[in-house]
């Protein structure tokens, strides 16, 4: 420790999942929080500062929830390493606040008994005491402390004044000098240790708690519907429909506003700056680059609002329960459901949402298949090609052929995602263990608005900071490729024809010729890496049509005249699978902490895209659609 913070106590909050630890952390630190990552891993490090009544400063750190210090996931490893002082980047906490749900003491006290072996000063916080009292639980606090050998205090994190006792205790602690750190006696608990600890916890409860909590009647009643084999599924589907609708429809005005704003800003910059390289860089590189990232923000905020509300409510574990068998058939975890669903809007929030999956292997599989879900950026491309090539014939009287093709493209995405995870599970991961599906279904609780908003803000900032920097630099790179070298003076062809992008496009054209792509498509695919829908504008540019984006219909007419039907179908097949999105790849890198998974995802998707387009093109040619 440095001389400056010699008096600061470092207090760590430990507890089982669903014990209300984060709500307590929020109540203690208010908005004085900092969210970062632990060095080298994508586990969030939440810390904050608390100034006690007598003016002491305490550094609080909120550790990921865990049932034991054994460390079964990267999050739990962090909790263990911080508590044991094994993490090089963290000094060990001086004091442990062990948070327990007062309505669910058995599991919490077993953890306390395990934590005692670390031999660090500790205070047990019986949180949610109000709910426990309402449900007729009578806890003899003194007796509990005595039997357990750990001082205890009660709290209600979500009530005004509910943490006064706790604050006084922290104030007392902070007034004393930090003690010497005693060597830990903790060893990985064996089966017999766990059993003995649970017996001991049950003994303490028997001695100090008059009556175990009656089941929450509200939870029982709500679960009778929400976990019902039929009504539960209906409710889940309804909920998903609303969520999907919200992510698409509610976000649209805000997204239009953002993209409109950036277009206007770009146009304004074009009038202010002299025509040339600087103007192109500012307008097409910087402004449209930043805009293409920011435009996702409304979708991300709405999606995370739903996820946070459902998580706080206690529904997320139930959705996993209902979906476990269905997802399990493809080798996915029940919890992968929400992230995959989110990926229909955009793979970026979907991949960010995989954090709800605690097992690394399940999380990686989900991240890998998330980009196969038909995201909203594919829609402009699909619509353009379908409108230009597929006649709007009625099928079976009521269905339109165009709609059917669209549906087929969505289905292809879903089916291939399930197939890829199935294959990954049976061949790729064969040697690693499938973790058993075991999780607590917590009692329903009303989400705390403040906590949800704070979390939402943190998610938004994380997205802007992490994705923003990487995506932005990719955008600048793509702009560079599409702009250099400059066209010679007096050239009449579009500028992109002279660029590096065009050179690469022509260079890869022979590779793409077997799947029916001409050089114009090959060139358009390069800026299309920025975002899928950009390919529409790029096609407009390479076919030298003024005002690419607005003239989508015009592009369609042009394409209908230039492409064969087989090429159009191959292009659609390509778009189902192609890793045509630099932003998604950037987010995968951030979330998995390295290039390995980016490369794996990129190449498996590329191979699938090529194969699908090849087969489609050849079959279409054989059908005489060339």
């Amino acid at each position: 420790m440095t001389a400056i913070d010699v008096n600061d106590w470092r207090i760590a909050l430990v507890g089982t999942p669903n014990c209300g630890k984060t709500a307590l952390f929020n109540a203690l630190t208010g908005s004085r929080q900092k969210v970062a990552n632990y060095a080298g891993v994508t586990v969030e490090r939440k810390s904050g500062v608390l100034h006690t009544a007598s003016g002491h400063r305490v550094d609080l750190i909120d550790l990921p929830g865990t049932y034991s210090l054994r460390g079964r996931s990267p999050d739990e490893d962090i909790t263990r390493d911080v508590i044991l002082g094994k993490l090089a980047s963290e000094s060990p906490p001086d004091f442990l606040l062990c948070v327990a749900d007062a309505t669910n003491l058995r599991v919490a006290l077993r953890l306390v008994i395990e934590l005692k072996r670390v031999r660090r000063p500790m205070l047990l916080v019986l949180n949610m005491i109000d709910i426990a009292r309402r449900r007729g639980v009578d806890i003899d606090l003194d007796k509990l402390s005595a039997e357990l050998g750990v001082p205890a205090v009660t709290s209600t994190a979500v009530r005004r004044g509910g943490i006064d006792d706790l604050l006084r205790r922290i104030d007392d602690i902070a007034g004393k000098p930090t003690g010497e750190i005693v060597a830990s006696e903790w060893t990985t608990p064996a089966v017999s240790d766990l059993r003995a600890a649970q017996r001991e916890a049950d003994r303490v409860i028997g001695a100090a708690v008059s009556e175990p909590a009656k089941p929450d009647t509200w939870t029982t009643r709500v679960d009778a519907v929400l976990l019902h084999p039929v009504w539960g599924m209906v409710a889940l589907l309804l909920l998903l429909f609303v969520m999907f609708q919200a992510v698409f429809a509610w976000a649209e005005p805000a997204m239009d506003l953002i993209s409109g704003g950036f277009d206007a800003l770009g146009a304004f910059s074009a009038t202010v700056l002299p025509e040339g390289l600087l103007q192109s860089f500012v307008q097409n590189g910087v402004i449209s680059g930043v805009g293409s990232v920011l435009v996702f923000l409304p979708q991300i905020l709405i999606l995370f609002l739903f996820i946070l509300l459902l998580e706080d409510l206690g529904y997320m574990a139930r959705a996993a329960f209902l979906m476990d068998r269905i997802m399990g058939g493809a080798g996915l975890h029940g919890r992968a459901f929400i992230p995959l669903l989110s990926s229909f809007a955009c793979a970026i929030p979907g991949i960010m949402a995989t954090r709800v999956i605690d097992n690394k292997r399940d999380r990686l599989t989900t991240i890998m298949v998330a980009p196969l879900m038909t995201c909203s950026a594919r829609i402009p491309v699909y619509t353009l090609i379908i409108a230009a090539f597929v006649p709007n014939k009625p099928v079976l009287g009521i269905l339109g052929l165009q709609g059917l093709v669209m549906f087929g493209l969505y289905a292809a995405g879903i089916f291939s995602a399930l197939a890829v995870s199935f294959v990954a599970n049976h061949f790729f991961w064969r040697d690693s263990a499938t973790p058993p599906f075991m999780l607590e279904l917590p009692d329903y609780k009303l989400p705390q608005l403040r906590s949800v908003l704070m979390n939402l803000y943190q998610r938004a900032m994380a997205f802007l900071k992490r994705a923003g920097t990487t995506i932005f630099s990719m955008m600048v790179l793509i702009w560079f490729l599409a702009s250099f070298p400059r066209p010679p003076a007096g050239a009449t062809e579009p500028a992109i024809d002279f660029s590096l992008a065009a050179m690469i496009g022509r260079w890869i054209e022979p590779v793409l010729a077997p799947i029916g792509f001409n050089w114009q498509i090959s060139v358009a695919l390069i800026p299309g890496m920025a975002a899928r829908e950009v390919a529409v504008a790029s096609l407009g540019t390479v076919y030298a049509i003024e005002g690419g984006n607005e003239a989508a219909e015009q592009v369609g007419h042009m394409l209908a005249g230039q492409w064969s039907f087989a090429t159009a179908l191959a292009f659609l097949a390509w778009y189902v699978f192609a890793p045509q999105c630099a932003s998604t790849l950037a987010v995968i890198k951030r979330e998995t902490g390295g290039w390995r998974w980016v490369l794996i995802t990129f190449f498996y998707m590329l191979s699938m895209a090529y194969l699908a387009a090849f087969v489609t093109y050849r079959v279409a040619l054989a059908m005489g659609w060339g």
Partner: protein
Amino acid sequence: MSDPDTRTLEAMQTTPLGLAQRGFCGRVSAIMVGGDHLGVSANEIERRLLELGIVEGASVQILHEGPIGRDPIAVRVNGTTIALRRREAMAIMVGEHDRAAKTVP
């Protein structure tokens, strides 16, 4: 929470929780993991069950069954509700409560 009466436990017929139906009410008499599951050692499965509070003597009640193949199951273990697959629940040997003595609402 009182310790289970061991004599009663022995007298009760024990079955794996994984075979029990919704509404089943009983007490854990033993945890016996048959073998490794999909690469997870039997020892690890036993530890995970114990960490969720599933220990000999705990009262269990099956509250809900999943929509497909009645799997997974939601089990009330003393005061907590745990979701797990029948596969893992096969390791939890349970004795049925005397129906008449059942006081659970």
